[in-house]
């Protein structure tokens, strides 16, 4: 049996739309400093951190092999460092595998993105497409999401009001989360009347441009006590890739998320996702995704995401207590931030937004056009 893996601490910068005062190196370093302060972990190569797993994006950082430029800031000087692609939630999984395998006892995870550094995040995600076909047609993650939003609306019949309620919930929860970016309350009317960005996605349906960094310290079950008395266990994990080209897939099928969710639940011994989680953190960069990913995670029945939004579940405060991605986390670390909130909740440290008695949480991460990559992590205390 592989060793169990505990999250010992998390650290997040606040998320804002333009962290102009800082280089992204400083954003990273501040989270690392916080981890050290919380846990007393050191850099002893025998007993401390000797391996760091990072997540960052070359285009947003404007340098190839982006992790090379942050090694000092993430403490990776003169030791191992690996960068993961896709969402930073994959970095947690990589670190988890390092520990489960016995290769490492303590691993630091650091993810960052500074969306504001670029003229337009859409120009960056346009570069995620093939260079002479989709890119020339003007696709980017936002346009891809709009195609998927349309496909999902046609399939499920989700209404404008239901979409608006996803945003209203995000802001209501974010108002209680001092780290969140978009914390102003909005009404259903404001959302449904906000200007169309990319039909059917309205301005308020889209997550705000965001900067920030997240760090996490993981340790093996026989080592965590040195760093925390409130361990959060990583009990389930999986991820799945869908096709790269839109024409090859049914955008409304949730195929990759269903696969990832089923495998993560199996690993964690969860037989039915419905009702299994006290805290749910969904990587909803756009409003329709709260409903669509909820279906993919198995939290509600197929095509019932809209009804699920109106079922009263959002009012319990258990769904995206952080405010979710809609409240503003940068691309690449949306899932990492979801997992961070799950840890905060399971440690009982979420303050005003604390879900009472939270025992088990699920965090979802996604990257790529229209959720090509999907990752699901289950955490328990």
């Amino acid at each position, binding site marked *: 049996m592989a060793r169990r893996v505990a999250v010992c601490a998390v650290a997040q910068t606040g998320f804002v739309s333009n962290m102009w005062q*800082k*280089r992204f190196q*400083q954003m990273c370093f501040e989270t690392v400093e916080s981890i050290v302060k919380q846990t007393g972990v050191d850099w002893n190569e025998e007993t401390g951190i000797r391996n760091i797993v990072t997540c960052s994006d070359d285009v947003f950082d404007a340098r190839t092999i982006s992790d090379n430029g942050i090694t000092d800031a993430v403490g990776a000087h003169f030791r191992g460092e690996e960068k993961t692609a896709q969402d930073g939630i994959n970095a947690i999984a990589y670190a988890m595998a390092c520990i489960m395998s016995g290769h490492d006892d303590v691993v630091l995870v650091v993810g960052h993105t500074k969306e504001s550094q670029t003229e337009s995040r859409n*120009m*960056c995600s346009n570069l995620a497409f093939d260079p002479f076909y989709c890119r020339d047609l003007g696709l980017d993650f936002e346009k891809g999401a709009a195609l998927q939003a349309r496909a999902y609306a046609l399939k499920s019949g989700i209404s404008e009001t239901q979409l608006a309620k996803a945003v209203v919930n995000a802001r209501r929860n974010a108002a209680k989360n001092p780290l969140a970016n978009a914390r102003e309350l909005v009404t259903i009317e404001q959302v449904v009347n906000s200007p169309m960005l990319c039909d059917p996605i309205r301005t308020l349906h889209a997550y705000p441009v965001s900067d920030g960094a997240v760090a996490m310290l993981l340790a093996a079950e026989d080592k965590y006590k040195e760093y925390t008395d409130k361990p959060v266990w990583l009990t389930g994990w999986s991820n799945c890739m869908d096709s790269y080209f839109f024409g090859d897939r049914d955008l409304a099928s949730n195929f990759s998320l269903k696969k990832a969710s089923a495998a993560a639940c199996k690993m964690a011994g969860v037989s039915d996702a419905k009702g299994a989680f006290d805290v749910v953190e969904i990587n909803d960069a756009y409003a329709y995704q709260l409903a669509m990913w909820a279906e993919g995670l198995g939290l509600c029945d197929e095509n019932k995401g809209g009804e699920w939004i109106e079922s009263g579940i959002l009012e319990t405060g258990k769904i995206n207590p952080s405010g979710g991605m809609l409240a503003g986390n940068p691309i690449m670390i949306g899932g990492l931030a979801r997992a961070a909130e799950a840890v905060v909740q399971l440690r009982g440290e979420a303050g005003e937004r604390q879900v009472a008695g939270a025992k088990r949480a699920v965090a979802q991460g996604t990257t790529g056009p229209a959720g090509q990559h999907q990752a699901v992590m289950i955490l328990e205390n």
Partner: protein
Amino acid sequence: MAKYFDVSVEDIFNTMEARFRVEGAKGVNAVLAYDISGDGGGKWLVEVRDDSVKVAKTDDLSGFSVKTSADAETFVGVNIGKIDGTQAFMSGKIKIEGDMALVAASAKMFTRYSLPKKSAVTVQGIFDTLVARFQPQNAAGLDISVGYDITGDGGGQWTAVLKDGKCALETGLRDNCAVVNSVKAKDYIDLILGKLDPMVAMGSGRLKLKGDMNVAMQLPKIFAKFEPPKEEEEQELIVIKRNISVDMKYSTGPVMGKFFEGLIEKKILANKCPKCGRMQVPPREVCAECRCWAGDMIEVGPSGTITLIEIIYYSSPDPLTGETRETPYAQVHILLDGIGKEETFWHLLKNEDLADTKKGDRVRPVWSDNRVGSVHDIIHFERIRD
């Protein structure tokens, strides 16, 4: 003759008249001169007079409208599309003197050089398939040998032994052949490929048959037709050019930001680690070794000592502007005065100092008059010679 990408410089010029496109040269009255250096190079004059062209190798290039100078490899590479012409020009590998517009126009005056197709069929290749092409149903009861005497380059002698409905191929000619075909290798290939009529070949004496003519007449049935291996068409695949460009705005933060502010004041600021005392320039927020915040700023230099010098002779174009730095130029690592340990600063060296500057020499910055808080506030470092 030296070849580059399988093509010699002579190949390019020798085919130029054949590649001339009258419709692309309308109204052109010019003399294009080429000075190709290196192995296989030489000098050529290409005279274009409206609807005619004359290509001549020469020693005298005077009187040209435009002169292109390049090394042989670059010249061939650009002509056959293996080297990007613009890039070669930008990096100085191609030099153009005179009416530059004619160079672009010449692309319309001549079709691109393409490699002559080599025949993939050889005599050996034909005989390699002979046994497989044997048709036993058409050779029932035959007990004979058929000789082939293929003369000239690529030829050879073979004997096909037909017996008991089987065919064996031997090299050399058996004495007891029922019939012997004698033909030149090139004609034999043409015969086999159907490009040369057997009757015509016999009538003209290019194909000689000795022995039993009846057997000779049966041969086309005894052996199935030779199918030449499919030639791989060298297709010109489309290459798409795109420029990637996203405008960025980089925060400099409280540490690197102070360094840039310092440059405006003609000061070079390093940051100092509060734990180990190490200094970094350009400064960064963190001392990588101590993993702590290192925000104390100390003025260093501005003079220093060269620890490393590197001279660049081939400069890559800037990916966004396409502009290429003039070469040669030198980058130097400098241990600024007061820096303490071994952490060096690096910048450019004044071109005039390039020839005689070495490790250990003293240098000082030459400041720009228009300082805005950028690495270019220092134009370069120059030798202190007093």
